């Protein structure tokens, strides 16, 4: 038996000092291993929260890699054979492969086997109690290029030995879907947040934007988001030790092991939550120079924090203290 796997996750900073805009209400529930928040007009808060909760329950049933009965677990267990999938799974699969192509594989949905072997084989709440072997050397990722889709039969065929792990993109897409559903119900202004990934629609009564706290280590910032989405990728949150090595959940598909990035967190503002989520993760893996170039290429604004405590901005991200 190997050494104990000890998690060192930082406590969640979604702290009690968050405020609720006047005239609005705040709803919470648990889904996808995290705390969900819905901000909506006070009279419709119950309706909005129920809609979002139902949507996330459906998505989690299909896409969780921690639930043996999920569609994702089934597809992973059938690698090498075509599996007919639901429309939801097909949609997420397609978007994940689009993201992989758009990032030259720095976002890689085919790292499921790697992340399990690194020790993150169950919800993070359970990881600290597990005993786990020291992860060995892994091959690089890139197996997503061998995934075969048949749009006529709507089947997915994974290469043998590969397991899907959509990661944060599923959460981001679910947030986008939830916001669009609430918009269709006429429930704006709203904010939907899933474990730090969020999207807004409209603005709170009497205000021109939403104040969002960005939890940069040692120096949290508050910025005003007038529209769109924001997501943060951090290698400080889901950490553990294995074999004397610091492990975290953001794997670099180019090496197959946790990214050795000098950046500890990247927060990105983008139009869609899924875009922000993927971009934040990719920029963190690429590091400051290449990550900034990537973000600028796509016109996104971002805040990058490095391991020395310095922060760097990209695009129109406001410099703190400026008007």
């Amino acid at each position, binding site marked *: 038996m190997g050494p104990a796997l000890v998690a060192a996750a930082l406590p969640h900073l979604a702290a009690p000092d968050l405020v609720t805009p006047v005239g609005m209400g705040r709803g919470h529930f648990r889904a996808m291993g995290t705390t969900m928040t819905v901000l909506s007009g006070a009279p419709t808060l119950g309706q909005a929260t129920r809609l979002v909760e139902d949507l996330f329950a459906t998505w989690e049933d299909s896409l969780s890699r921690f639930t043996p009965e999920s569609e994702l677990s089934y597809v992973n267990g059938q690698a090498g054979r075509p599996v007919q999938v639901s429309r939801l799974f097909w949609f997420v699969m397609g978007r994940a492969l689009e993201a992989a192509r758009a990032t030259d594989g720095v976002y890689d949905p085919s790292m499921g086997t790697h992340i399990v072997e690194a020790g993150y084989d169950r919800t993070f709440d359970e990881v600290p109690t597990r005993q786990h072997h020291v992860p060995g050397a892994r091959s690089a990722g890139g197996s997503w290029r061998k995934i075969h889709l048949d749009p006529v039969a709507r089947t997915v065929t994974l290469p043998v030995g590969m397991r899907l792990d959509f990661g944060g993109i599923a959460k981001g897409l679910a947030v986008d879907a939830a916001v669009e559903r609430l918009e269709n119900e006429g429930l704006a202004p709203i904010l939907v947040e899933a474990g730090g990934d969020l999207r807004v629609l409209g603005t709170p009564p009497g205000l021109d934007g939403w*104040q969002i706290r960005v939890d940069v280590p040692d120096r949290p910032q508050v910025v005003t988001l007038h529209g769109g989405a924001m997501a943060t990728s951090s290698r400080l949150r889901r950490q553990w030790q294995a074999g004397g090595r610091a492990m975290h959940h953001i794997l670099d598909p180019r090496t197959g092991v946790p990214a050795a990035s000098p950046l500890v967190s990247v927060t990105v503002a983008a139009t869609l939550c899924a875009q922000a989520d993927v971009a934040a993760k990719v920029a963190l893996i690429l590091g400051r120079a290449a990550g900034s170039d990537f973000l600028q290429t796509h016109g996104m604004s971002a805040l990058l924090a490095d391991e020395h405590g310095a922060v760097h901005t990209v695009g129109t991200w406001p410099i703190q203290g400026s008007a």
Partner: protein
Amino acid sequence: MARRKPVPIEHKPTREQIRGRIEKMKTYALAGAVAAFGIFWGLTGTNAVNVSGKNSTRSAQQPAANPSDFFKNSGNNGLGSSSGGGGFASSSGS
């Protein structure tokens, strides 16, 4: 067997009318072919990721028409500085 009733000479199409009808048929045929190709391409190309239909096979290794589609219109300039406070929500990282 019933004999076909002869068409009176004054109703017979002229050579120019026949030529016009043939040209019209060619136009319809071309339009039909373009529409059929459009439907086929819509099903198998552009936005599809790696597609293998009955008549077409592409793998994810092959480049898409626009590999940046995922980040289309991703730019967000809707950010401003804040005077502080606790914030309405937190982007805390995952």
